[in-house]
């Protein structure tokens, strides 16, 4: 493999990995607070992609407007899922909420088939983002650089919210002790809603960029990326935001590089993610950056 090709694969992996990371953050934040795996999260990602498809391709709105609509729409859907499917089960056994999550996921997917039809639809990429240029012999398109850059900016912003603001403090506090957090005057339901809103907005951004990268949308497009992002979250240490991003990048690199170096194995591409999951669960069950809790009483 030439260096040029390697750099191209590298940027490709960075893009795919940061998309996994963006989705993984939604899983990890909700898990960190509620100990719930929000299976509907991959479907919020799908909805984000569809919303941007409808607004820009079908209704010919400008991209900026379409992106805004997609983020807002997916965020509202994420909030609705929390309100309807999870909040009524807050004090129920954890398994009930998990089953509810699976149910919601199937519901959204099948509703999407009914409403959007099951037919995959092509997304028209803005030509501006696809205009190839070359740097030192490496051919690049702006989209390839935009995806990791946007992801990086969003994750930095999120870390600032979580570690430097009051709602962020409340989130970190709820994840350890809901009762004490309430005693301090924090409205827990509101903070949980905020968590769903942030996770859904990030999933929508990922969905939009995914739709641009593989230019099409279909109702089940959220399942595999959702699973892989979940694996990324576990790999990075579920509950940890930097861990989710790191896990996403690791997964992106494993997937792209394995195919790049061993083209014969390309059929097993999706299996690598699960192999990675098994290895990490055997070697370090808390994930790369998962915290080990030592409470002193």
């Amino acid at each position, binding site marked *: 493999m030439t260096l040029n090709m390697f750099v191209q694969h590298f940027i490709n992996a960075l893009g795919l990995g940061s998309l996994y990371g963006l989705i993984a953050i939604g899983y990890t934040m909700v898990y960190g607070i509620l100990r719930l795996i929000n299976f509907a999260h991959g479907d919020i990602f799908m909805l984000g992609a569809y919303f941007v498809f409808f607004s820009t391709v079908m209704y010919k709105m400008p991209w900026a407007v379409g992106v805004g609509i997609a983020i807002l729409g997916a965020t509202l859907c994420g909030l609705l899922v929390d309100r309807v499917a999870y909040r009524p089960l807050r004090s129920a056994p954890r398994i009930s909420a998990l089953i509810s999550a699976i149910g919601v996921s199937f519901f959204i997917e099948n509703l999407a088939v009914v409403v959007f039809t099951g037919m995959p639809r092509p997304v028209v990429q803005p030509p501006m983002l696809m205009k190839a240029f070359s740097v030192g012999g490496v051919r690049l398109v702006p989209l390839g650089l935009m995806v990791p850059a946007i992801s990086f900016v969003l994750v930095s912003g999120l870390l600032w919210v979580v570690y430097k603001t*009051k709602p962020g*403090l*409340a989130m*970190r*506090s709820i994840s*350890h*002790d809901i*009762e*004490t*957090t*309430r*005693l*301090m*005057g*924090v*409205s*827990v339901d509101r903070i949980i809603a905020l968590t769903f809103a942030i996770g859904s907005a990030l999933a929508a951004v990922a969905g939009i960029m995914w739709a641009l990268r593989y230019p099409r949308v279909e109702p089940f497009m959220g399942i595999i990326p959702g699973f892989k992002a979940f694996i990324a979250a576990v790999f990075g240490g579920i509950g940890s935001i930097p861990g989710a991003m790191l896990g996403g990048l690791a997964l992106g690199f494993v997937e792209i590089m394995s195919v790049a170096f061993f083209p014969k194995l390309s059929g097993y591409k999706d299996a690598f993610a699960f192999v990675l999951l098994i290895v990490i669960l055997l070697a370090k069950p808390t994930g790369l950056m998962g*915290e080990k*809790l*030592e*409470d*002193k*009483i």
Partner: protein
Amino acid sequence: MLEIRDLNVWYGGIHAVHGVNLSIRRGEIVTLIGANGAGKSSTIRAIAGLVKGCKGSIEYTDAGGKTVQLAGKQPEVMVKLGIALSPEGRRILPHLTVEENLLLGAYTRSDKKEIAENMEYGYSLFPRLRERRAQKGGTLSGGEQQMLAVARAMMSRPDLLMLDEPSLGLAPILVEEVFRIIQTINREGRTILLVEQNAFAALRIAHKAYVLETGDITLEGTGAELLENPKVKEAYLGGA
């Protein structure tokens, strides 16, 4: 300030508190003593809104003279009403720094200057916390965690400070310090409800005291009266 009438608390099928009546006047230190499982914590947790199965009336009159019914209210509204609880077992957030724990106590406050002043006040009460401000709560010793729990509850500038077993697990010298600070806080105009197993220490500083036994109040009086009461001496102060 606080009027409790006929408070009953159930945990699952267990009737933990049977019709307790209790009243707290502004400016007092009121203590609730009793053995383990007598219903002290259940009572204080019911006031804080942490108990689902409770019945009875809990009337709170705030500094402005307005009276509200606390029974059935959620715990997160108590801070805004001027009530703060330092819970049993301290419940420090181990992964947050001392400073973040304190900021959490000021969650309902938005005035930055006031928060900074309150934090300064907490550090002046407990200078040890200032030294450890950047340390994670989980790395503190038991005594330091207790100080942090009290300072955190004080961050909301409560009118009524409720303390659930502040002496639990502390060395005698620290118990003395914590109780001294409770008195200081009280002298500055805050009303205190103190739940304690350490009856001697609690009665010494209390203006008014109640003895709880298996869910019923069996004795009440001033702290000094109960210290001299033969029954209390026999049951809680190790005879003599």
